[in-house]
């Protein structure tokens, strides 16, 4: 047993439900006790979803415990088949059904003979995989199921499209800024003259999955979900894939170069010429995206060498680490991920970009690490934001687990060239603003929340002489209070009652020492 207050990745069935409910007209039925359908609450509240979440439960209650589900699961499946006429029903096991060990596959087999819709059992084990692994696996399972089905029916479609085309794999519901990323990726592909063949699972239709192999290649923007599907398509149909996350200026360029490589396998035969994106990359990098310019600007100069900590899922933590270290010259004291299953890949990605790496799904370890390092800013999940609040360190949220405020209505991609702008803003705004910081340095370091006196008014026993008062007035308003407090704190510590300009500077020296 593990004592846990908070977790990074959810249980396996959440991953399955996220994939299933992202497809159009797919219904998931959970084999679960009452109250386990809180996925519907998350989707309805966080995503502000307008439609009813296509997830219901076949309730496991006391009777099921004593006699087994018997006809209940099958009845629930067939009833949903009649009510909603979905294309696919995914029976989803939960931790409860893992322990009950009922033969759910048997229920599925029997139900699928009665139903018009296809019925499958999600192949996930609660105790072996987490939310993200389960999502990856479920997506692959659904794609495999429908491609095999069409192959058996003898109408698989594997002729390539005339123009270069791509599938985007791994955009799904409750994903961190996935909707915005999807739009940005579509725009990027369009700029490159590439048609988007299909986006799965978000908004995709299982009936159209047989057309997946028509694309020239697959684009898998996130490390966590979609890779298994891409590997399956590669093995089965020889489809190549690009799995470099186009996050940050450098990796967006890398991603585009890989896309070029894939296109140029076929392009000479079809259009008779090789395609080159270098001028596009150059133009975007230098003039369209503001991020490259921003790293040269004096604002960013002030961030040089500042300590930061990064934590999140493998994709976002690795990319942000690289952006901080290579693109902005910020020191990453520690970077880490909770995707323990992907430890090797992660370490390879961030090698040389960070002083330490931390692979854990225990938030107390992350908290301790942050407290030890005392960075100027944290880039992490909602959990790290809370840790930052407690330690009074600003935090930019870069990864799930998320909160409703991470589902902004405005356009906020993390991927592509617009994504680089968004990330630059996020990073810059997380650090104390440059000018303010500069002034604080001159006059004695950061404000601390330590209690100086017990009363709220601090000007009781200390007097400022006229000279020091004039000096204080010269300091811009927004930092004056902090400097006044720091000076007074220093004076108290040293039993000084009359504050002179000398004391002010002594305090500054003392605090910056």
């Amino acid at each position, binding site marked *: *047993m*593990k*004592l*846990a*207050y*908070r*977790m990074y990745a*959810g*249980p396996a*069935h*959440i991953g399955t439900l996220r994939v299933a409910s992202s497809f159009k007209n797919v219904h998931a039925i959970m084999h*679960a*006790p*009452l*109250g*386990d*359908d*809180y996925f*519907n*609450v*998350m989707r*309805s*509240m966080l995503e*502000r*979803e*307008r*439609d*009813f*979440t296509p997830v*219901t*439960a076949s*309730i*496991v*209650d*006391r009777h099921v*415990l004593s006699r087994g589900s018997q006809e209940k699961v099958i009845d*629930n499946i067939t*009833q949903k088949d009649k*009510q*909603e*006429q979905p294309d696919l029903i995914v029976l989803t096991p*939960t*931790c*409860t059904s*893992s*322990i*009950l060990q009922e033969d759910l596959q048997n229920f599925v087999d029997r139900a699928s003979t009665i139903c018009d819709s296809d019925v499958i059992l999600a192949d996930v084990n*609660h*105790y*072996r995989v*987490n939310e993200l692994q389960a999502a990856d696996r479920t997506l692959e399972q659904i794609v495999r199921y429908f491609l095999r089905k069409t192959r058996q029916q003898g109408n698989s479609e594997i002729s390539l499209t005339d123009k270069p085309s791509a599938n985007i794999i791994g955009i799904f519901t409750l994903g961190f800024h996935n909707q915005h990323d999807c739009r940005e990726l579509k725009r990027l592909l369009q700029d490159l003259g590439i048609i988007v063949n299909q986006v799965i699972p978000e908004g995709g239709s299982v009936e159209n999955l047989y057309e997946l192999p028509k694309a020239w290649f697959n684009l898998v923007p996130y490390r966590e979900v979609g890779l298994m599907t891409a590997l399956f398509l590669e093995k089965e149909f020889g489809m190549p894939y690009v799995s470099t996350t186009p996050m940050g200026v450098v990796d967006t360029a890398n991603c585009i170069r890989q896309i070029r490589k894939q296109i140029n396998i076929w392009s000479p035969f079809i259009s008779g010429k090789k395609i080159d994106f270098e001028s596009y990359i150059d133009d975007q990098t230098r003039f369209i995206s503001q991020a490259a310019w921003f790293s040269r600007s004096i604002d960013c100069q002030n961030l040089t060498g500042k300590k930061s900590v990064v934590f999140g899922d493998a994709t976002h933590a690795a990319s942000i680490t690289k952006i901080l270290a290579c693109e902005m010259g910020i020191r990453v004291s520690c970077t880490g991920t909770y995707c323990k299953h992907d430890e090797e890949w992660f370490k390879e990605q961030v090698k040389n970009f960070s002083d330490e790496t931390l692979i854990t799904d225990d938030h107390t370890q992350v908290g301790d690490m942050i407290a030890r390092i005392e960075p100027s800013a944290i880039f992490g999940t909602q959990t790290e934001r*809370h840790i930052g*609040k*407690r330690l009074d360190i600003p935090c930019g949220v870069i990864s799930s*687990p998320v*909160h409703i405020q991470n589902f902004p209505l405005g356009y906020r991609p993390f991927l592509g060239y617009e994504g680089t702008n968004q990330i630059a803003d996020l990073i810059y705004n997380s650090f104390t603003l440059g000018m303010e910081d500069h002034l604080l340095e001159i006059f004695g370091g950061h404000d601390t929340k330590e209690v100086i006196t017990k009363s709220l008014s601090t000007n009781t026993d200390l007097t400022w002489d006229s000279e020091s008062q004039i000096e204080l007035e010269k300091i811009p308003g927004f930092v004056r209070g902090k400097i006044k407090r720091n000076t007074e704190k220093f004076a108290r510590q040293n039993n000084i009652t009359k504050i002179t300009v000398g004391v002010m500077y002594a305090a500054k020296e003392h605090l910056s020492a």
Partner: protein
Amino acid sequence: MSIEISEKISETLTFECETGNYHTFCPISCVAWLYQKIEDSFFLVIGTKTCGYFLQNALGVMIFAEPRYAMAESEEGDISAQLNDYEELKRLCLRIKKDRNPSVIIWIGTCTTEIIKMDLEGMAPILETEIEIPIVVARANGLDYAFTQGEDTVLAAMVHRCPERGKENGMKDKMENNYTQEILSFLPTRTKVKSNKFFDSKNQNRLVLFGSLPSTVASQLSLELKHQSIQISGWLPAQRYTDLPKLGDTVYVCGINPFLSRTATTLMRRKKCKLIGAPFPIGPDGTRAWIEKICSVFKIETHGLEEREQRIWEKLKNYLNLVRGKSVFFMGDNLLEISLARFPIRCGMIVYEIGIPYMDKRYQAAELIFLRETCKKMCIPMPRIVEKPDNYNQIQRMRELQPDLAITGMAHANPLEARGINTKWSVEFTFAQIHGFTNAKDVLELVTRPLRRNNNLENLGWTSLIKLQKG
């Protein structure tokens, strides 16, 4: 599966039971409000990632204010019995003792502990003596219970920990009371003058109320009873575990929430307490009926209650104008539904359907009678009461009935709003202060919020925000 939508709303209270395919919170959510209520407690939920993720997401913001609850997350080794449950729990509880030093640790059993038959009740007493902290076991699982019933299981488990008000104690109390009265008898004190001649002094200090309420609401209710010269001798739960009330066969108990039927039964059967079956103090009508029932048991004539109720209704006038004639549909998820429907009916609203997870007709008897009377009094058709509702069918019925307001869980609220049906989250009624005369306004504040929002947005012309599609 027929959906009797077109059926006319009946003239008597009808009870129906559907499939139980409805959305509600898992009963372990009770830790969220109980750990705040019982200040020196620590709640340990023994379950899986599924339970933990629920608490984290459902209770969102509260989780990082150093909560006094945590998960004992079962791993594969626990399930396959490779690890020793007792040793594992001992390890965790010792850490909790070291870090937090609570006065009581409450183990919340979940579906997992039920299925693998983890003997929590057997282990608790042994571990309790070993680590010297009381351990209370409550089986608040989704196999047996819905949402607020979680509190019921915790309070029922706590009843066993309440000190005994034994026979000799009772005698002693009696003597003490007599003694006090003798001492006071020569004084022309106000207490003596005020003491009601119908009031049997031995009943004093013998009323225990059960149900968890924020302390301000608890003191408001205590004060209301004090006005009728009834002293409450204790609350279950109290602010601290160490202040649990004394119980025994001379003690009267009264519930303040409709979902506490197990607690009521345990109080009666195991502690021989006398249950006062009353409507619940929700809304001014409910509060008055509740106080009157308690007073009648103690043979006290109430004074000033009618006027008090009247004054509250006066203050609610603006809200009443908003709600009168409007219709409500309760999808049902927290067992407050009967009382929450009865109050709006008294306000002049029409209730089409009261969905409810579980209906204890004995424990809620007084409330049900009160509901029927209220309907008659207001000349409003009786609502149908649907136990273990089926959300899919309910949505079909709602489509037909087009209620002015649906009181529903968060899973359905946004989709219903997008279809032009106003909703109020039922969960808010669980966390808001809704008991007593003082808080009647808060109930209507919640009920009217979507209606008031509409008054602001009415003329914009975009109530339905979904694209028309098949089905």
